[in-house]
């Protein structure tokens, strides 16, 4: 199968940069720095170009010039005021733009966030600890696997109360209070453990993604970039390491 030149070139670039980045696991070195700077530069460059094209050209210039939507000059003017930060004498003008943005942002976010997170989550935490089913009377469900079971409701209630108590520093954590605070610590540890477990899983997924690509690019149809560039990276690390040994840094 003959692949287009652009695909092959992309495979070589991707493989090279991946190996350069992974070389950091051995030690910090110039090829890692090259890949790191390229990553930051390319992603920033892409963002600037895309933003310019979508915002400046598509949403401002074309509507004004082609459709005569002159009212767009008002938000453009407010936005431009931000640039006065670079002129010390006129920097005070930027406060109007910031005031507008902070005001709109806070106005939109505060009520919605309170309603969505604080009130909704409290509502979910204080659900009844016993269920009343029609025809069955008062029931209690024990399933740990069902998040809505009564047993889980009690566990969540104990967890929330004990964690809140742990962060309540106006009362000394002694006697029964110490027991509650310790339970709070246990719940926090379980929560941090779950978060850490998921974080490890996420990082491993990223490694799997990179290795999958490296395996794919070791194919002859790409010219085996994985093999050649791995040899190049290892050789570079050996040379750099020898040079470093020959000229140890002054202390």
């Amino acid at each position, binding site marked *: 199968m003959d692949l287009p030149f652009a695909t092959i070139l992309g495979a070589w670039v991707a493989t090279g940069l991946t190996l350069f980045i992974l070389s950091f*696991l*051995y030690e910090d070195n110039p090829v890692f720095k090259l890949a790191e700077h390229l990553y930051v530069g390319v*992603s920033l460059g*892409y*963002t600037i170009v*895309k*933003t310019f094209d*979508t*915002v400046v050209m*598509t*949403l401002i210039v074309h509507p004004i010039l082609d459709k005569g939507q002159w009212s767009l000059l008002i938000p453009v003017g407010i936005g431009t005021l931000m640039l006065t930060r670079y002129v010390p004498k006129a920097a005070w003008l930027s406060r109007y733009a910031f005031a507008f943005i902070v005001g709109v942002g806070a106005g*939109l*976010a505060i009520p*919605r*966030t309170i*309603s*969505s*997170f604080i009130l*909704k*989550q409290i*509502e*979910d935490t204080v659900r009844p600890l016993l269920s009343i089913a029609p025809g069955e009377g008062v029931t209690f469900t024990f399933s740990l696997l069902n*998040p*809505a079971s009564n047993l889980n409701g009690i566990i969540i209630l104990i967890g929330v109360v004990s964690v809140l108590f742990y962060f309540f520093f106006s009362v000394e954590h002694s006697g029964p209070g110490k027991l509650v605070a310790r339970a709070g610590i246990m719940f926090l540890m379980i*929560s941090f453990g*779950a*978060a850490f477990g*998921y*974080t*490890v*899983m*996420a990082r*491993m*997924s*990223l*490694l*799997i*993604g*990179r*290795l*999958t690509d490296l*395996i794919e690019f070791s194919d002859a149809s790409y010219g085996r970039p994985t093999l050649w560039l791995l040899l190049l990276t290892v050789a570079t690390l050996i040379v750099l390491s020898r040079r470093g040994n020959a000229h140890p840094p002054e202390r």
Partner: protein
Amino acid sequence: MSFAERMLRIDRRIIFLVIGLCTLLPLLFPVGLPIKISSEVRGVYDYIDKLPEGSVFLLSLDFDPASKPELYPQAIAILRHAFRKNLRVVAMTLWVSGTGLADQIISQTAKEAGKESGKDYVFLGWSPGGSAVILNMGQDLYNTFPADYGGKATKGLPVLAGVQNLRDVAYAVTLAAGNPGVEAWYVFGKDKYKFELGGGCTGVMAPGLYPLLRSGQINGLIGGLRGAAEYETLVGQKGKAVAGMDAQSATHLAIIVLVAICNVFYFAMLRQQRRHERIGS
């Protein structure tokens, strides 16, 4: 230096090598461990599966290439499912750096399913404003995205027939790698405009989103590569996520073994020190 001490001071590069091998070997020689479907992933799948043909399905691809290994397989699996169900797919992104990747995902999946841009699906691209974009879409979709990613006017596109704003969307799923993402879509979208919402996210974000799932604020959650593998299994088209699950399991096992071994050596060293102190005194 005792054996336990030497093991506890082991060069970290040896650990990297062990993890690297545990990842690489299952990728080269897959075992095919079974994948159990969780209720949170099934929540998204079942909702899409029950949507009538022609329903408007909004997919927001709120990630960039840095999160590709986890969210790319999720996006592919969901789109395959939506196209198979003949839903009208409206795709977009809130992340400017992910625009190209999102376009590639949609074009590739649509081509595979034989779907036509503008008729069966539309990629709206990116619009500035983050969370404000969701609010604007709730008011008027055409004001927020006057043209699709290809520059074609959105007004009059057959795929958007009868759609004025977010209230006309039957189901929305956001695949997010950060902010704006699932939370923004709930706060500024579902809570205000009342449409059903599902989420997909990176593994790092998943624990923080479980409270939203439990309270019913989102009806399903696809978490990380594991979630993607579950969705691929449900759709019946195994892809990159399923292929990566053997490696994922192997690395997890390696980490568990390393943690256990280190603890054994740590306690062995403590016992040794205490014995030395007793002999010394």
